[in-house]
């Protein structure tokens, strides 16, 4: 009797479990014409605040529709990407999802999973609101598949003012040679590793900033669209300079996250760190005021961008509602609401600077006049498989410093994962 009661209880428990699963599939998000499921990995912090700001605008501009939060937290987006992949595979896409703008989308585009938004770009006036360089980087085979919500800048050199002053450095270097001279001065002043550096993707960022200086924006863009060879002598020279640059960095770089490297800067153990402009918000949040910033020496007026964007997947249940969401994302009010809270800048060049902190205001001014180039570790220049191959080549170089091997590896990565001629 007792046993059978237990069995009955278990059966009920299992039954409920399956019933819940069954129910959840009938209450699928986005079903019906009202709800717009927005899939992101913005679940907390400034990112969540930014999303909330955007949702506020959506609620007034698209009152006919209802926002449904499909955020998947954790793993810096890797959890969300896995969930998204399986949903796309089962032909159950969310109405829209967050993805890095640019080449990282090529996986979805090649698989024919995204709708072309070129017509909407004209309709909503985005073609003129976004800078031409960005539009060029976003265009794949004459079509545009995403609407960027924000812009971050990757090629920014952050510095500790006190450390620089102690070494007698008063002006930001504007060339690579000038930068090497400053680094030598810092070494002479007793700063053993003046350039703080972290692991994998942060090394890729430093390398790219150097490549922009050595090759110029046009040839740098060419590395990713196939018009600049990875095998040339200029590349060899750039890798040699990168090798020299590594001698000014902390030896334990491969064990460091970007925030560990940032701590070296804050503690005055390093003078510089190359990092994206999210560092400004982070330093402010940590109460460190003594920082300066400049564009990486030799980058001139080049703005290396990365962006979060939204797309319209094929088979989205509520395409009209999604278009209204995308219009909000691309609108001046939407971009202002989102970026003031997230700590990035609008992709549009016609948004007023009021309400943005000092660094962002300067970046917004640069964005209008700059030459735009994309970034591989942040997905705007290359697809994820390519990114993985570059990452491992860079990791190997960090430990063995073999210039020829790095160049060969980068060239084969481009041949295998890059654009096919």
């Amino acid at each position, binding site marked *: 009797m007792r046993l059978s009661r237990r069995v009955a209880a278990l059966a009920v428990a299992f039954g409920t479990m399956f019933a819940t699963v069954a129910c959840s599939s009938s209450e699928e998000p986005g079903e019906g014409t009202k709800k717009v499921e927005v899939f992101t990995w913005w679940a907390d912090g400034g990112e969540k605040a930014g999303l909330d700001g955007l949702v506020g605008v959506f609620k007034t501009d698209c009152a006919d529709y209802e926002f449904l939060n499909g955020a998947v937290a954790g793993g810096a987006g*890797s959890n969300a*990407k896995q969930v*998204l*992949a*399986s949903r*796309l*595979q089962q032909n159950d896409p969310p109405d829209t999802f967050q993805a890095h703008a640019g080449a990282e989308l090529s*996986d*979805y585009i*090649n*698989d024919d*999973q995204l709708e072309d938004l070129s017509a909407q770009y004209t309709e909503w006036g985005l073609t003129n609101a976004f800078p031409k360089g960005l539009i060029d980087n976003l265009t794949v085979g004459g079509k545009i598949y995403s609407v960027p919500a924000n812009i971050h800048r990757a090629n920014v050199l952050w510095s500790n003012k006190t450390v620089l002053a102690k070494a007698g450095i008063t002006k930001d270097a504007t060339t690579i040679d000038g930068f090497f001279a400053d680094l030598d001065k810092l070494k002479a002043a007793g700063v053993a590793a003046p350039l703080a550096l972290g*692991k*994998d993707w942060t090394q890729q960022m430093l390398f790219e900033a150097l490549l922009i200086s050595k090759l110029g924006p046009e040839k740098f863009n060419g590395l990713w669209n196939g018009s600049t060879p990875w095998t040339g002598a200029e590349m060899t020279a750039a890798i040699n300079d990168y090798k020299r640059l590594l001698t000014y960095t*902390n*030896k*334990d770089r*491969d*064990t460091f996250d970007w925030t560990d490297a940032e701590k070296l800067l804050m503690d005055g*153990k390093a003078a510089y760190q190359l990092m994206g402009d999210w560092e400004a918000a982070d330093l402010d949040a940590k109460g460190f005021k003594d920082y300066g910033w400049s564009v990486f020496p030799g980058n001139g007026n080049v703005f290396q961008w990365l962006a979060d964007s939204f797309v319209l997947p094929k088979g989205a249940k509520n395409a009209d509602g999604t278009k209204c969401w995308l219009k909000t994302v691309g609108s001046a009010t939407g971009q202002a609401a989102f970026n003031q809270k997230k700590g990035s800048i609008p992709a549009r060049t016609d948004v007023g600077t009021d309400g943005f902190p000092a660094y962002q205001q300067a970046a917004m001014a640069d964005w209008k006049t700059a030459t735009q180039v994309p970034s591989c570790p942040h997905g705007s220049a290359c697809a*994820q*498989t390519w*990114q*993985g*191959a570059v990452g*491992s*080549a860079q*990791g*190997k170089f*960090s*430990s*063995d410093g073999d210039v020829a*091997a790095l160049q060969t*590896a980068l060239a*084969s*990565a481009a041949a*295998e994962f890059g654009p096919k001629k």
Partner: protein
Amino acid sequence: MRHRRRTWIPGLLLISPSLILLAVFVYGLIGWTVNLSLQDRHNARPAKGYVGLDNYTKLFTSDINDRFTHSLKNLVVFTLVFMAGTIVLGLIWALLLERRAKAEGFWRTVYLFPMAVSFVASGVVWRWLMNTGQGDSAGGINAIFHGLGLGFLESPWWTDPDWGMAAMAVPAIWQLSGYVMALFLAGFRGIPEELREAAVVDGATTFQLYRQVLFPQLTPTILSALIITGHMSMKMFDLIMSVSGAQWLTEVPAVYVWQTLLTRDYAKAAAISVFLLLIVAVVVVPYLIHVNRSEKRS
């Protein structure tokens, strides 16, 4: 005949739930992975068809930087250092406790305790212990060497190109040598006391006693210790991931699978997984056959 069937059917009914679960969730998944590894399948797209062993040959021919071969080499170094370390340490500790030492239970717990800690937790601790900052900024082991004036012993540990992988084995040895000790202790206890007494009566020295009487009896235990540590090291993922964050220098196949999966190269990840499964099988299957045979004998 009828009577026989009656006993056979309930038996099958009883065992069938576990058989079904085993078939679906263990062998079904293995089969699914093998199937995936034979396809051209990347990202979220549907399979483009079967490509035979292409995904496998690519691992050896077109893998950038020979990443897979490199991770295999790393695995060999890690396995050798880890196996040698755990077995030697485990044996030493078992020998210390083997003759009913004082407070044996206490010491056994002390040696075994690291095994109770999760790999991730101990990985985090070892990450700090092997902190690579040198001089003033050194932490953990390097700080101790620095403080003792033994600066020449300071090392970047797992970012050292020559010793990185061997250094990675140290936390694993720390964690699992107690377990090997327990195995050996059980092995020693399984040897009949008469053998020992007979050897002593025959005038064997302690060295002779261990060398010629006890160790030969311990062979099956040593074999299982080798197999267990060997297959553990091949699957090592969490510890390596949490100590080094799986940089190029310390990448092993299990970590490579994970990294590949993150770039959504599913077919390649499946191929690496199957390859790893085969290596583990080469080690484990003969052992299982051996165990089954000796169980039948006893």
